[in-house]
């Protein structure tokens, strides 16, 4: 019995030694330091390709469309940018998109925080499971499907209007307007925001909150002076992500707006595929990229890089 065990352990060690030798033959130790860099390669390649695409877009945006051939002229000009500045519709679309991004990101972060906090702090395993499932379920349902779902509920013959009709009340215009787009966007962005806030809340030790309470702070003061400042990186990260996602969103305004409330992405789409004007579309894209980058850069500048979760090494 004991002898068998000893033999078995010995065999085990031999096996492990063998595996180790095999591994070191296939992947010598001197390569080990470069593993991290090798794994980085695919991501670097992907971003590199993106940068090349961006380069082409910049190039396109400086060429006017030749209406006789429907190709971009060879000479460089600022005509596309002049057109955008000239036509009030583009300014309107731009303002509408920016305002939506602001409203959606502020509201979403505001709604996401209690959810994330509850998810982290709840003592009940059942509640946590429910919150987790409710958080991940929407990810399995695409944006387009969800937007159509809202059409079914909010549409002219939708659930709510049939209900109102049954009660003898007049039907309401619940879709194809700005508020419905905002509503749909908030609903779409909420899980992203929660996912970004959860780690920030989880990083706050519960003892710190208890300590604050023990030192004389009620929960409102604890929230203001302890939880909020410590969760700030997560809140700002969520704000930035939701802001940029909304700024560039296409499906929600298209489906729930029904053509009445175009965002920049719709204008870009139209330029490329309706007007076949790649130059104009590229110029609109450039403006979108510029605005987005400036705003995100400004937020990071004001809030510090800690926001990204990349803290400066503490001593």
């Amino acid at each position: 019995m004991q002898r068998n065990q000893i033999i078995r352990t010995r065999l085990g060690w031999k096996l492990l030694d063998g595996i180790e030798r095999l591994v070191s033959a296939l992947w010598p130790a001197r390569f080990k330091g470069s593993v991290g860099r090798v794994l980085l390669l695919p991501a670097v390649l992907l971003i590199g390709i993106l940068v090349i695409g961006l380069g082409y877009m910049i190039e396109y945006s400086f060429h006017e469309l030749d209406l006789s051939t429907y190709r971009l002229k060879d000479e460089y000009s600022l005509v596309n940018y002049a057109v955008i500045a000239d036509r009030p519709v583009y300014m309107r679309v731009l303002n509408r998109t920016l305002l939506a991004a602001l409203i959606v990101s502020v509201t979403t972060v505001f709604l996401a925080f209690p959810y994330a906090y509850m998810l982290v702090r709840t003592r009940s395993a059942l509640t946590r499971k429910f919150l987790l499932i409710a958080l991940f379920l929407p990810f399995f349902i695409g944006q387009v499907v969800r937007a159509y779902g809202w059409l079914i509920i909010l549409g002219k013959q939708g659930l709510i209007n049939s209900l109102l009709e049954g009660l003898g009340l007049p039907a309401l215009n619940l879709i194809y307007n700005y508020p419905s787009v905002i509503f749909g966007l908030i609903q779409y962005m909420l899980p992203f925001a929660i996912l970004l806030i959860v780690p920030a809340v989880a990083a706050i030790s519960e003892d710190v909150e208890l300590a604050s309470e023990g030192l004389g702070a009620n929960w409102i003061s604890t929230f203001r002076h302890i939880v909020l400042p410590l969760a700030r990186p997560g809140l700002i990260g969520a704000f930035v992500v939701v802001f940029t996602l909304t700024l560039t969103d296409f499906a929600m305004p298209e489906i729930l707006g029904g053509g009445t409330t175009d965002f920049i992405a719709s204008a870009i789409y139209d330029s490329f595929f309706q007007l076949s004007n790649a130059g104009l579309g590229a110029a609109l894209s450039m403006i979108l990229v510029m605005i987005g980058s400036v705003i995100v850069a400004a937020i990071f500048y004001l809030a510090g890089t800690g926001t990204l979760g990349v803290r400066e090494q503490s001593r």
Partner: protein
Amino acid sequence: MSRMVEVKDVSKSFDGTLAVNAVNLVLNRGEFLTIVGPSGCGKTTLLRMIAGFEVPSAGEIRINNERVENIPPYRRSIGMVFQKLALFPHMTAAQNVAYPLKMRRFEPAQIPSLVDKYLQLVQLGDYAGRYPHELSGGQQQRVAIARALSFSPDLLLLDEPLSALDKKLREEMQLEFRRIQQELGVTTINVTHDQREALVMSDRIAVMNEGVVQQDGTPVDMYRNPENRFVANFIGMTSLFEGTVCATGDGVVSVKSGNVLLQARSNDKVLPVNTKVDCAIRAEQIRIVEDASVYDNSVFGTIEHRIFEGDRIVYTVHVEDLGGARLHLFDHDPVSHKEYPANERVRLGWNARDLFAFQAPQSN
């Protein structure tokens, strides 16, 4: 002396399991009490109920003669130092110490001088502007204690704050905590699983096990006169073996264990003949002897192993005559340099007053 804390028949159960079972404790103003016990004995739950983070299932807690069971922590006058310190990482040492003063609406003009006073008290006057991550472990400890004391609470609670430190620093901080506590005269309850810490720091010790206070007394009392087998075993290095009372006298009983007759101390308890008892003896009370006549009790045994600890040697001796019991003993004879090898047959001796006999729990 006036009472600062009174815990009366306090119980707490979680999902039907009793974590704290009808505990009674009284603490006088200025006293330093340590609750010591193995992990899961209910000591932390008891502390959290006193702090207000848990509500007792039954019983009363009074602080400064006021019932507090339903008063939230932020309205109690208690400073607590947490096991993981729980310093606010986004605040400097000074801001940490100022926090309770702000929350408790102290006069704003008063706050800087109080912060300064308490940082001086813990010898961190020069570190006011440092953030917690810029301070060493010991310095963080001291910020935590300054923060817990700056608002002059009625009561200071320590939830094993020293357990994460290395031995040397821990021993330093034990003395430091004790110095500060005595300087301010603040009533303190300390919770630990470290019996040494309990002996070194406290005016009084309460030993807890399985939700029950086993014994409550001064450190000397706790060490010299343990009331039951658990306390004797928990404090100090103790060997245990079983026996039966065969004669009883004035504070002394004769116990038959294995095939030897021993003189033991019954600790003022009446132990009639034929009572089953647990015998306990501390490692430092046993000697390896040549001449047994000096001691009340003497047995022969075989050295099983030997651990060299520098200032002393710990022997484990197998005693066939005591029903095969293993006795641990310390040998700190620094002069003779004598070491007994393993398997050597030795004679052990000890006195009756050092061998405790406790009535064995009734087995059903």
